[in-house]
C-alpha cells in the first residue's frame, strides 16, 4: 500500500454536504452575524464557509499577492474558524479577490456551490457590513437562498470580533 493512499483519507464533511457561505470584508465580521451563521450551519448540519473578500486595486492582477490585506484576513479567519469548530460546525474557509466586494463574491460562487448565503448588513456605530447597493446586488444575483442579517445597531463594532475571538483562541 502506498503512503499516498493512506493520505487520501476520509473527507471531514458535514453529513448533509450542505455549505453555508458567510462573506465579509474590511477587517471585521460582526460577532452576532457570525453567531447566527454558525447556528444556521449547525441547524442544517452544513459546513460553514467564512469568506474574506479582498478588493484588489486595478493596477494589480486579480491573483496578485496582497500582503497587507492578507495580514488582516488570516488571523480573522483563524478566529472565525476557531469559533465555528468550538460550536461543532465544520469549516472550509476562503479568501477571495475581486475588483469590488460583489465581484469577489461572484468569482467565489462561480467557482463553488453554496446552499445558503448569510450576508451581514451594516449595523450601528460604523459596522462594515455590505452596503445597501451591494446587498441589493446580492439578492438579485445570489445563486442560492440568501439571508441578510442586520446586527443590533446599539452594539459597538470595530475590531471587537477579532479581540473577542482572539481572547478565546
Amino acid at each position, binding site marked *: *500500500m*502506498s*503512503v*499516498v*493512499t*493512506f*493520505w*487520501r*483519507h*476520509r*473527507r*471531514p464533511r458535514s453529513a448533509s454536504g450542505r455549505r453555508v457561505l458567510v462573506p465579509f470584508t474590511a477587517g471585521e465580521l460582526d460577532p452576532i452575524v457570525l453567531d447566527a451563521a454558525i447556528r444556521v450551519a449547525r441547524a442544517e448540519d452544513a*459546513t460553514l464557509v467564512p469568506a474574506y473578500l*479582498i478588493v484588489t486595486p*486595478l*493596477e*494589480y*492582477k486579480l*491573483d*496578485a*499577492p*496582497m*500582503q497587507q490585506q*492578507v*495580514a488582516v484576513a*488570516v*488571523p480573522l*479567519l*483563524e478566529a472565525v*474558524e*476557531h469559533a465555528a*469548530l*468550538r*460550536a*461543532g460546525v*465544520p*469549516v*472550509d*474557509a*476562503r*479568501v*477571495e*479577490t475581486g475588483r469590488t466586494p460583489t465581484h469577489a463574491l461572484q468569482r467565489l460562487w462561480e*467557482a*463553488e*456551490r453554496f446552499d445558503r448565503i448569510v450576508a451581514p448588513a451594516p449595523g450601528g456605530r460604523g459596522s462594515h457590513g455590505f452596503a445597501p447597493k451591494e446587498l441589493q446586488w446580492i439578492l438579485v444575483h445570489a445563486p442560492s437562498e440568501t439571508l441578510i442579517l442586520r446586527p443590533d445597531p446599539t452594539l459597538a463594532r470595530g475590531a471587537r470580533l477579532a479581540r473577542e475571538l482572539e481572547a478565546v483562541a
Partner: protein
Amino acid sequence: MDRGHYRILVGMAAGVGKTFRMLEEGRQAQQHGRDVVIGYLEPHDRPETAALADGLEVVPRLRTSHGELDLDEMDLDAVIERRPELALVDELAHTDAASTRNDKRYQDIDEILDAGIDVVSTVNIQHLESLNDAIFELTGVRVRETFPDRILEDADEVVLVDLSPEQLQERLREGKIYPKERAEVALQNFFRQDNLGALRELVLRELAEDVEARRQPASLEPLSKQAVGERILALIEPQPKSQRILRRAWRSAQRLNAEIDALWVRPAHYEPSEEETTQLAALRRLASILGIHFLEADGHDLVEAVRTAAADRGSTYIFLGTPDERRRTEILRGSLLSRMVRELPGLDIRVVADRAKKEVPE
C-alpha cells in the same frame, strides 16, 4: 570555439537608461583594451546617448527595403566577420525585416555568441513572452514584439537598470526620452505612475526569480544545498484543512521572512473528484493571494516526492497536516512522520493540528 559571454540589461520601460548603460560598459571595456564594436544602436534621437557612442566603432547597418519603406537592420554577417571581442546590440526583442535571414534580433545575437563574440544587449521587461498577458492587464497595451523566457534564463548575466517612476517621469518631462510634444501624451498613457510602479514591481520580481534560479549550482547534492534563508514547503491535499495549513505556513513565513511552496502529491493515475477539484482550485487561489508557489507532483511515495521537491526548491521547513494513517500501513512501512524524520535529514518538520479533531461541541 567557446560561445561568447551574454549580458542583458533589463529595464521596466523606455528611458530608464539601458542603452546609456550599454554604451558606458562598452567604453569601459574599450578603455581596458578590449576590441568593442556597436553592432546596432537605437539612439532614439537622444543627444546624451549619441555623445556616449562617439569613439566606439560602429558596424555599418544593413539597408533593406520593405515595399516603399527603407529599413536599417544590424548587419549580422558584417559583425561576425569583423570578429570583435565584444559587440553591443540594442533592443534584443526587435523584429528583423522580412528580407533578413532571422525573424528576431535575439536570433542574430545567438549567432554572434556562437561565433565566440561577447554581447551586451538591452530589453524592456514588457517584451518578455510569459508576461504578455500581465502587461496587457496592467497597461492596456498588447505588446507585439516578444522574446522567449529562455533568453533571460540562458544569458550569463541579467542586470537590472532601475529608475524610480518619479525619476522616469521627470526625464520624460525634460524631453530626454521623447520630444516634449509626445511626452505629455506618454505621461497620460503608458508612463502613468501606477503603470510604471506596476512594471517596476514586475521587473524586480522577475529578476529576483532569475537570481533564485541561478543561485544553486547543479553539481551540489540536492539535499546539501545551502539555503540563503528559510524556505517553507507546505504539504497539502484537496481538503478544507489544507486552507489552514497554508495560512499557518504563511504566518510562520512572516516571522521567518521565508518563501513558501505548497506541494500536492497526486497519486499516479489519480483523478480528483469534482469536490477535490474545487478544493484544489480554492487552494490555488489562496496560494496566489498569499504569494505561495503552488507545486504539483505525481508519485506513489509521498516522502520521496517531498524529498525531491525540497531538494529542488531549497526547502528548510516542512509543514503538513495531521496524517490520517491506518494502523496496517504504520506497521508495514512505519509512520509517515517517522519516515520523514528519518529520510529528510536537515529539514525541520511541523505538524499543523487538525482543530476539527480537538474542538468539542458546546
